[in-house]
């Protein structure tokens, strides 16, 4: 047992002891799925059918699976980040209620505390997001399943990376917060806004050209695309097997952001992993350095 394991244990226990925080985080993805399926399912379905070239016949199973996978991938892409913001409240609560003093009077380094908060939030968020992934996969299975084992494994990897990204991002933003009011405000902004800027709520192709270019600089966009690619890959393969021309399939992929273009240059899946993984490393490093600098400023 070392300082990290004890701090992580403390932070994770406090998260799960706060039943309100835990259940809110857990049921949010489930509620989103129900709302999406109820209100957006038919919109996605109509939009997909109207985008098909005339003369193409397609079974309900594929259409339902296409819509279900799109919904599920949108929810997972948003949840990995928004749940991280919900789970990462302890570091702000410790500041708001003065508990942080009990840690800062000790010789423990601020960077150690920072990593303790990061890993604890990562664990809590992962538990919730993996549960959400299970719910989403069950939903997809109930309406039409075309995913392979590798698709599922890659989807879990995508969720893991996005959770790491969301946790790092929330850690940096929460570093500057010190009250419950600020926490609530940031939580509301992230929950309502992140889905738009990562391309989960609306396909990026529907934004203006200038906005599309800006969004392509945001790492979350590539996370959403990875989740979408692995959730919908099986459906696209099925379409090809059913005789859809490659151009049509690629065109549909473009329309739902499975294919991304950075200034007209195609971004491969591998490149998306590099961008997302690199962003995680960069953000975690920035977060730790910020805490180290804060610790040094006390000593001056």
């Amino acid at each position, binding site marked *: *047992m*070392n*300082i990290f394991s*004890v*701090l992580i*244990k*403390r932070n994770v*226990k*406090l998260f799960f*002891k*706060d039943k309100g925080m835990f259940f809110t985080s857990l049921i949010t993805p489930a509620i989103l799925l129900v709302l999406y399926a109820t209100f957006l399912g038919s919109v996605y379905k109509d939009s997909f059918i109207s985008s098909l070239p005339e003369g193409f016949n397609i079974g309900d199973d594929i259409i339902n699976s296409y819509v279900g996978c799109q919904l599920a991938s949108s929810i997972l892409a948003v949840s990995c980040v928004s749940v991280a913001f919900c789970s990462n409240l302890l570091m702000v609560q410790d500041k708001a*209620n*003065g*508990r942080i*003093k*009990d*840690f*800062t*009077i*000790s*010789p*423990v380094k601020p960077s150690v505390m920072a990593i303790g908060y990061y890993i604890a939030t990562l664990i809590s968020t992962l538990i919730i997001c993996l549960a959400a992934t299970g719910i989403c996969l069950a939903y997809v299975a109930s309406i039409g399943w075309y995913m392979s084992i590798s698709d599922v494994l890659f989807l879990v990897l995508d969720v893991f990376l996005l959770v790491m990204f969301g946790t790092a991002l929330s850690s940096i933003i929460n570093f500057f917060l010190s009250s419950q009011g600020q926490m609530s405000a940031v939580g509301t902004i992230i929950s309502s806004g992140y889905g738009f800027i990562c391309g989960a709520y609306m396909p990026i192709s529907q934004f203006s050209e200038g906005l599309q270019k800006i969004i392509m600089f945001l790492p979350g966009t590539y996370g959403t695309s990875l989740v979408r690619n692995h959730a919908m890959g099986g459906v696209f393969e099925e379409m090809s097997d059913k005789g859809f021309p490659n151009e049509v399939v690629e065109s549909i992929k473009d329309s739902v952001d499975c294919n991304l273009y950075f200034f007209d240059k195609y971004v491969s899946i591998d490149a998306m992993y590099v961008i997302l993984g690199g962003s995680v490393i960069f953000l975690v490093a920035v977060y730790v350095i910020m805490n180290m600098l804060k610790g040094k*400023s*006390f*000593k*001056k």
Partner: protein
Amino acid sequence: MKNIIEINNLNKSFGSVKAVRDLSFRVKEGELFAFLGINGAGKSTTINIICGQLKFDSGSVFIDGHDIKKNVDEIKGKIGVVFQNSVLDNALTVYDNLQSRGALYGIYGKAFQNRVAELAKLLDFEDLLKRTLGKLSGGQRRRVDIARALLHKPKILILDEPTTGLDPQTRKILWNVISNLRKEENMTVFLTTHYMEEAADADYVVIIDSGKISAEGTPLELKNDYTGDFITIYGAEESDIKKLGNNYEKIRDAYRVSVENTEKATELILQYPNIFRDYEIIKGKMDDVFLSVTGKNLSGGEER
């Protein structure tokens, strides 16, 4: 005895507000040091600086010979703090709380278990270890707060109004424990309190007002310098008391006469032996000292 805390010409401002002004004092190793002042006098600012929580504008702070600007991490390992309000996690058990705080000082495994057992016995909370902290009474939680501060065997224990809101019995238990620790481990106790009877037991007292020292000394020195004595005379007539020529007040079955000091009291007794048939002489209290020094009352948790 060596100085364990040395503060020289300390200054700290928050914007235009000067919280601490040219503060200098010494705390000797093993003593009970009382640091008194009304809310906003600069006590908490000074404590935060001593604990390495706050930068200061000028001056120097040495703890156990270490300059706080150069060795803050080493100093942090020598200080234990009992905060005014508990800063432990209400949702966790007493054991989990102490485990997470012990780890901050590198205390794990068997060493931690032994230390917790020792403190639980000393502070009489062995049966509370598995209880959730938030469900304990104020007195029980205070004992756990003190255990947390003592986990790493600090050389200096800072008690920031530790007994505010506690019942007399719990206050007595806590002071007995602290007193024993001081004797057994030569631990220095740096106390801020609103209970003047606690300050009266201190080895040395510093009173600050508006960020600067208003008075300092042993309780006896302060009482001698800032308050007079009181003679309570029983079985005398008011006309006799008037003859003494001093201020007095009638209490239930006696008169309380103010005198400048014990020497003046002796002179009065010798001058009027017939009046002093049944009497007692007592020194002024720390409350009177505080009132005399600051012009403000500070008693039982409230300033008036």
